[in-house]
């Protein structure tokens, strides 16, 4: 049986709204993150990942207020990132109620920052995020939430960030993100062969079978889920109407997601005999 496995709703934020894209692009506004998070807390989320997805592009992070409000009522680990690039920035976010901080762009631009932040805050607080895209059979790392590709190879970077001391890694497959076609299994296998520290996989989960499929290739410490949970909630009318239109997308892509049929409880129930899962 797999090690203990956290099921983690991933909350992508742009201008205080929950957004979700496909391949990290075409971000659609889904609504008020509070409503989603409250529902996820009540239905068994093991952690919340908060990601300000435009922060690193604009060099700012607006999450402090949202994080504080969440931490007043949601007693779960809060992992926060997006545009964080300094010790001060991390300190502010932790003081606002975040438990762990992740970064991608800042670490790629200045890898020594990993050592500095790990030394200062401890490896348990510092998480590296990787957004990877496949090119000619090789995986490369992107920055600025997938807006810019780099020549940095995933293989090399995985080992480097592990050596520099981060406690955990979040790996997002840009190719699978938002498609509902399942996580990239080759990628899963690659990560598990390259590193021994815990890692979270993110991108593509669209039906229950995707979860145990991926567990045949790797033993992640967490699975992050966006579209599958958010859109499911939407069709259950658990949150108010969309602020901006994306109903076309929902209608068109129903086949990729079991909209309204899969929720956190069902996922955890499904996985409870395949990994160590917290049941509430």
């Amino acid at each position, binding site marked *: 049986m797999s090690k203990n*496995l956290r099921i983690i709703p991933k909350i992508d934020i742009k201008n205080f709204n929950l957004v979700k894209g496909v391949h990290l692009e075409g971000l659609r506004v889904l609504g008020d993150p509070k409503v989603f998070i409250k529902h996820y807390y009540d239905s068994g989320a093991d952690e919340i990942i908060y990601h300000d997805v435009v922060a690193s592009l604009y060099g700012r992070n607006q999450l402090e207020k949202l994080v504080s409000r969440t931490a*007043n009522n949601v*007693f779960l*680990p809060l992992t926060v990132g997006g545009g964080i690039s300094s010790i001060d920035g991390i300190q502010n976010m932790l003081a606002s109620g975040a438990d762990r901080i992740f970064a991608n762009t800042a670490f790629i631009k200045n890898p020594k920052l990993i050592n500095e932040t790990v030394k200062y805050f*401890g490896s348990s607080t510092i998480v590296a995020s990787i957004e990877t895209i496949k090119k000619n059979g090789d995986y490369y790392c992107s920055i600025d939430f997938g807006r810019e590709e780099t020549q940095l190879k995933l293989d090399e970077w995985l080992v480097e960030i592990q050596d520099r001391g981060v*406690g955990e890694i979040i790996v997002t497959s840009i190719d699978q993100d938002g498609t509902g076609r399942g996580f990239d299994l080759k990628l899963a296998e690659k990560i598990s062969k390259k590193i021994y*520290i815990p890692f979270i996989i993110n991108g593509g989960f669209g039906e229950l079978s995707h979860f145990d499929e991926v567990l045949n290739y790797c033993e992640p410490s967490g699975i992050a889920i966006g579209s599958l949970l958010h859109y499911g909630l939407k069709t259950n009318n658990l949150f108010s109407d969309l602020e901006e239109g994306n109903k076309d997308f929902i209608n068109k892509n129903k086949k990729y997601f079991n909209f309204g049929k899969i929720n956190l409880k069902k996922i955890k129930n499904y996985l409870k005999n395949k990994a160590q899962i917290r049941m*509430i």
Partner: protein
Amino acid sequence: MYDVAIINFEMGNLYSVNSACKKVGLSSIISNEENIILESKAIILPGVGSFSQAMQNIKKKKLDDILLKFFKTKKPIVGICLGMQLFFERSEELGGSDGLGLIEGEVIPNGKTFFKQNNDILNIGWNSIFLKKENNLLKYCANPSQMYFIHSFFCNPKNKKIITSTSKINNNVFCSSINYRNIECFQFHPEKSGIEGLKIYSSLKEKINSSQ
């Protein structure tokens, strides 16, 4: 006067501990001032990060003396995660450093013990805790119940009788909470463990109220 002083040595998730206190109706303050701490009805020593750095910060602010004074008042002391480990005599972290020494025993790494690895390995996620004793802050928690852990080291108390719950990593049993005199400590984070974890804060409130 506050119900709880959350000891501020500039490390740890002070905000969430404060939120959890407020959630169950405890008045709380984040402080490193002697008067405020000693007047409080209980204290919480939180902590995330490196053991040696924490001890340095504690000594710099003379919090070690204040903690010892508070211990002698017999009022409740709660330690969380690194805040648990600091009460022990010594940690093997980064070549070794001395702790507050109120509890006999040492703090040892997960990696070497459970994974046969010399590197630090985080145990991160929800683990079951199996309750070993009654009449402590865990009394309203289910047995077993699941709590959120994030740690690379764990405590090995010399006197096993002080252990109030155990957990497992890779099928190896370790100590996940202790109760020694007026000190109760948790390796996991009650304030990050949902409703089950908040029950620990509720029992702290009950304990404070009943001792008045």
